[in-house]
């Protein structure tokens, strides 16, 4: 057996685990590890410009591939900078392993230089965390970390490693262990057959059924089985922000996104449905609206791998705990063996009703202006990229516009921070996505507020020659904040306007990239074509958009799905 130091074990383990990219930033407590990593040829280290970006990049890599993302940061401020990234991944259940340096065990607790209680700070926003106190435990802890992060309901795992544990002079035998049994951790995979049977019976009795799918379908790689099931049953389907792409937007049964900025047809179908089939979704408050008005007439079936998601906010009639793909496949099997189907007339009526709702054309907007409408940019972006790009986004109005107007056809193409709503996520996430898919088109839809929260990553993009296309919807406002102030604070715009917005063209150029400023609607399409033709360049596209555009439809806080506000006719002219 080979004898390795703790640092060498970390490097060798990452190689053995097949880790492709390690996103990180060096510092005192991780110097031994960085030194050892120089000899780990198969692990490519990506040097970011801020630790938060390291975690977001690993996160983008994980979301777009389904593999576990890995980040490495130093102790103290390195770790605290990483926390926002860790919490972002936690709220969206993204598998990450974050290695944090720690001060030597002999000085832990003494307020040493760059010491923080990393395990304590990260505890509420990780799936699990470890402090390695003996070099003999490193390999096993890493095996556990990758196992816990990637199985069950995925999530980030922090491994805190004191510097003396990585001491190059202390060598111990090492062998790679790919899997491990943990007595206290056994995620349920198989759904209960009786519950599945009961659910299928209820589904076949339904007169006004709706599928409500979430990020769990993407995370559980259940897209194919979901598509077969919907095809067999011919039920309408709506998706949360996190589920977009799991089901093709072009499908006749797709109602669009639901919730606060969901479509009229999706929210009305939720309000009227008699059988709701929730798949890998968690009844988030942005989705349900006021709980008292939520799906008043529905029997609710809920499939989820996490028992604690079931009946957390909304009472569920038929809970099924299990791997989403496994449960949907079992449902398909049951349906194969029966010639029973839903009452034909009721289903006809239901589809007719849905068609009526669609006629509202709730995503209409004014296309006859010289000004650039943000919606128009996204529609053109979809056209120019043929709907085939990986789209990352930041948080705010542009995120909602991207979700509403870029029709996603495939899972893992829509990369955004849904749960935590982290501004500054988009660009570093795009770094991870582009590295994972070097020959694919990656665009980051952002705003002038969000992009400045991790603008320094333009340097990382230059260092690794990442040809990301940045679509900056620049309305000179923190758009979503301004929208709420317009609606709920009588138009008092407190701090939602930023003075001194940089010249993004010059800024991009100063990092060595291409910058473009687009100011009229007529130029949008050509500019996009020109930018996307530059296959090997990062292009920062600064679109000067309508200042006070609002995101519609909108359900205000405290309202139900049936109480949406649509874009006023006055804004459509």
């Amino acid at each position: 057996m080979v004898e390795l130091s703790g640092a060498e074990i970390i490097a060798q383990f990452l190689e053995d685990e097949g880790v492709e990219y390690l996103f990180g930033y060096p510092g005192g407590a991780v110097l031994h590890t960085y030194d050892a990593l120089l000899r780990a040829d198969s692990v490519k280290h990506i040097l970011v410009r801020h630790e938060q970006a390291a975690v977001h990049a690993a996160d983008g890599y994980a979301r777009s591939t389904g593999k576990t993302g890995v980040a490495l940061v130093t102790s103290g401020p390195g770790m605290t900078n990483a926390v926002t990234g860790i919490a972002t991944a936690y709220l969206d259940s993204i598998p990450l392993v974050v290695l944090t340096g720690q001060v030597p065990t002999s000085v832990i607790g003494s307020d040493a230089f760059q010491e923080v209680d990393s395990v304590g700070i990260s505890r509420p926003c990780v799936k699990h965390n470890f402090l390695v106190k003996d070099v003999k435990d490193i390999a096993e802890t890493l095996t556990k970390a990758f196992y816990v992060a990637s199985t069950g309901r995925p999530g980030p795992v922090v491994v805190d490693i004191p510097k003396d544990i990585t001491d190059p002079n202390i060598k111990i035998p090492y062998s790679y262990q790919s899997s491990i049994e943990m007595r206290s951790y056994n995620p349920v995979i198989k759904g209960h057959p009786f519950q599945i049977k009961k659910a299928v019976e209820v589904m076949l009795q339904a007169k006004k059924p709706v599928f409500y799918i979430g990020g769990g379908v993407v995370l559980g790689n259940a897209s194919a089985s979901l598509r077969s099931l919907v095809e067999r049953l011919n039920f309408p389907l709506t998706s949360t922000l996190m589920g977009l792409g799991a089901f093709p937007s072009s499908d006749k049964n797709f109602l669009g996104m639901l919730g606060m900025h969901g479509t009229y047809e999706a929210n009305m179908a939720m309000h009227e449905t008699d059988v709701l089939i929730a798949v890998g979704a968690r009844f988030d408050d942005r989705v349900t609206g006021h709980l008292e008005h939520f799906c008043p007439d529905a029997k609710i079936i809920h499939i989820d791998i996490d028992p604690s998601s079931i009946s957390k906010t909304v009472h569920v009639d038929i809970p099924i705990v299990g791997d989403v793909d496994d449960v949907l496949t079992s449902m398909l099997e049951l349906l194969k063996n029966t010639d029973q189907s839903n009452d034909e007339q009721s289903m006809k009526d239901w589809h007719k009703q849905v068609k009526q709702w669609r006629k509202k054309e709730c995503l209409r907007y004014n296309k006859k202006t010289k000004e650039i409408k943000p919606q128009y940019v996204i529609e053109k972006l979809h056209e120019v990229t043929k709907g085939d790009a990986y789209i990352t986004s930041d948080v705010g109005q542009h995120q909602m516009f991207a979700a509403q107007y870029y029709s996603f056809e495939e899972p893992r193409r829509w990369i955004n921070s849904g749960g935590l709503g982290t501004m500054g996520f988009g660009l570093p996430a795009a770094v991870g996505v582009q590295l994972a898919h070097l020959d694919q088109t990656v665009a980051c839809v952002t705003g002038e507020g969000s992009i400045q929260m991790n603008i320094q990553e333009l340097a990382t993009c230059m260092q690794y020659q990442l040809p990301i296309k940045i679509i900056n919807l620049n309305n000179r406002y923190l758009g979503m904040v301004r929208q709420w102030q317009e609606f709920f604070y009588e138009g008092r715009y407190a701090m939602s306007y930023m003075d001194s917005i940089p010249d993004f063209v010059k800024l991009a150029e100063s990092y060595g990239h291409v910058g473009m400023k687009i100011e009229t609607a007529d130029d949008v399409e050509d500019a996009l074509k020109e930018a996307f033709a530059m296959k090997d360049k990062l292009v920062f596209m600064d679109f000067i958009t309508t200042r006070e555009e609002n995101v519609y439809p909108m359900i205000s806080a405290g309202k139900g799905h049936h109480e949406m506000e649509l874009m006023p006719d006055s804004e459509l002219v």
Partner: protein
Amino acid sequence: MRHIISILLENEAGALSRVAGLFSARAYNIESLTVAPTEDSSMSRMTLVTSGSAEIIEQITKQLNKLIDVVKLNDLNVSCVQHIEREMMLIKLKAPVSSREEIMRLSNIFRGNIIDVNDDTYTVELTGTSEKLNAFIAAFECDSILETVRSGVMGISRGSSSLHL
């Protein structure tokens, strides 16, 4: 409703703070909490007393089960389980000559033991349900009690059902 939840926990540094942190982060109540290693030194047994609606208790047990360090747990207040609960108290009382007879008499009634005596004080050890301990405290004037220390509730199910691996 009040619930007693018994938990088998990995005996690892930080495990206790994961449980405590979960309760504060999700704004659940903890009425009492006791924890000590079991016959298998790799595990601790925790007894946690909490209260809440049926939905909240369901969430609490689900969230606890989700913690990686929780090996197994059992809600002792579900209808299919009968249980026994005990709490221990040490109480130090002012014991002027005039009160000593009364303290001894009450200790006997409550099946307590006097475990320490000096010129001014008696210390009584008492075991029972929380109500019994409350009743004992109520039997004394407030200003005659110098100090009380209670273990928090421990619980175990009746009969052959048991919480083990």
